[in-house]
């Protein structure tokens, strides 16, 4: 059923009784051309683009929980393409371009809101690093502006300019960055993929990968064996566990990242802002909640929950940036499992098993990447070669030294 103003009106007059399900709940078939492990944003987008761009529609997504129950359902909704390195920037810009036309394309309002992303800087060295990054963006034709302190003050007059431990000196601004209603992305891709014939199989946990004669032939699941010609892993925080079923060990550690939402407030902050003197970023949702987060808890975890010490660090940084937050109350905190790669950048690549494809290592940047990740992964699966904008996101780059290390932190997962 196509969503439109007309359909909304027609259904309103019929008591909203005639809306049809957004997706089917199919029983798994015995085999598919492609099986995708993971019904989160990346898996759903991959299936959508496989069907739409490559005509491969005999596809199943197997998801152990509910559709969109991974990090697409628990992130802080930011989109941006303000990356430094040539291995990243073209990919994230492609993603932002896809975001810009996504809703009309899949006929679902995901509230893509390009309200701007500001990265504050507090020192000369930080300004220089942001200048370098902004120029890398401009080199690729991406919008970026460098604001001085007064430029920031004009946009955000209520930040702490006068009494701060680390005074705000300016910011790097990407106006095309912003936020998206995260669940709606999963629903939009899921509905679109389903419409083109993709089977989304929820509550179906992969328990094994069958490898015969050096090829993956299917997955053992809680709902039986499902065969496939090509197997694609998009399991985010659980990537290592799934890859281990095929005997692979990845350059990945799973870490917990917490995020937070405040009580609903009348419009308070209109852009996305990241603090430069501590780990903190914030935006305000269309419902009025301030959505914010900070750094990893730091330890390996699959638990989707964090601890109080990190909560305190995040809030301290937030208040250092915006004194008026003092009486604002946090409503809820939660945790997601991050597939932290050893250089902070993702992997979209083939594996030593020829028909097994891998999509992981998103660290905490996976949400904004959803469209391009799906697009490039679909391309890789369909053509057996990397998409040009993801050509550096290789699995063997660690062994060969072609790292994509935006911050130069090195081979320690929790520093990225």
């Amino acid at each position: 059923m196509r969503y439109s103003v007309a359909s909304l009106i027609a259904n309103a007059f019929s008591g909203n009784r005639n809306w049809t399900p957004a997706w089917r709940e199919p029983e798994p078939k015995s085999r598919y051309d492609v099986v995708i492990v993971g019904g989160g944003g990346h898996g759903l987008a991959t299936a959508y683009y496989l069907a739409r761009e490559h005509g491969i529609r005999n596809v199943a997504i197997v998801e152990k929980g509910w559709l969109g129950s991974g990090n697409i359902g628990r992130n802080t909704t930011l989109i941006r393409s303000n990356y430094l390195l040539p291995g990243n920037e073209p990919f994230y810009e492609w993603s932002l371009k896809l975001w810009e036309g996504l809703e009309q394309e899949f006929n679902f309002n995901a509230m893509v809101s390009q309200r701007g992303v500001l990265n504050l800087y507090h020192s000369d060295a930080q300004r220089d690093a942001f200048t370098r990054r902004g120029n890398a963006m401009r080199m690729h034709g991406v919008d970026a502006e460098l604001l001085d302190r007064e430029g920031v003050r004009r946009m955000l007059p209520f930040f702490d300019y006068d009494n701060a431990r680390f005074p705000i000196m300016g910011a790097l601004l990407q106006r095309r960055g912003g936020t998206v209603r995260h669940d709606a992305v999963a629903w939009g891709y899921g509905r679109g993929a389903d419409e083109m014939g993709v089977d989304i199989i929820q509550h179906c946990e992969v328990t094994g990968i069958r490898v015969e004669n050096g090829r993956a032939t299917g997955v053992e699941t809680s709902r039986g064996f499902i065969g496939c010609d090509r197997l694609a892993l998009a399991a985010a925080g659980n990537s290592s566990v799934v890859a281990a079923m095929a005997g692979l060990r990845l350059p990945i550690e799973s870490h917990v990242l917490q995020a937070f939402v405040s009580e609903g407030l009348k419009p308070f902050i209109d852009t996305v802002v990241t603090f430069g003197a501590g780990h903190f970023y914030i935006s305000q949702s269309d419902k009025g909640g301030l959505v914010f987060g900070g750094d990893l808890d730091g330890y390996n975890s699959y638990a989707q929950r964090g601890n109080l010490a990190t909560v305190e660090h995040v809030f301290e940084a937030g208040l250092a940036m915006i004194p008026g937050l003092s009486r604002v109350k946090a409503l809820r905190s939660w945790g997601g499992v991050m597939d932290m790669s050893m250089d902070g950048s993702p992997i979209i690549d083939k594996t030593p098993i020829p028909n097994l494809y891998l999509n992981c290592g998103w660290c905490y940047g996976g949400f904004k990447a959803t469209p391009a990740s799906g697009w490039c992964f679909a391309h890789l699966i369909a053509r057996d070669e990397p998409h040009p904008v993801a050509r550096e996101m290789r699995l063997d780059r660690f062994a060969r030294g072609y790292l994509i290390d935006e911050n130069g932190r090195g081979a320690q997962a929790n520093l990225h």
Partner: protein
Amino acid sequence: MASLIPCPHCGMRPKEEFTIRGAVPDSRPAWGAPIDDPQWFSAVYLRTNPRGRLREHWYHGAGCGRWLIVERDNLSHAVHDVADARARALAGDRT
């Protein structure tokens, strides 16, 4: 687990006192091993990253200054064992 850590030298201490390096590699080549030994790459970059029990390197920087091996469950966050890493290494556990 990660709210309070039972340091073998200092007793129960809050997480903020520690620096966490990450998972203990599965193996590490001996000092002076040839640079083409694949174990080097594996020790620096590859992680088993199991769901469940694992070992991590924690440094008690605001306490005794000792590196610890924290063995714990990364799903329940229960701590099973915290040991002095050097003592372990001297006992032959070199990872």
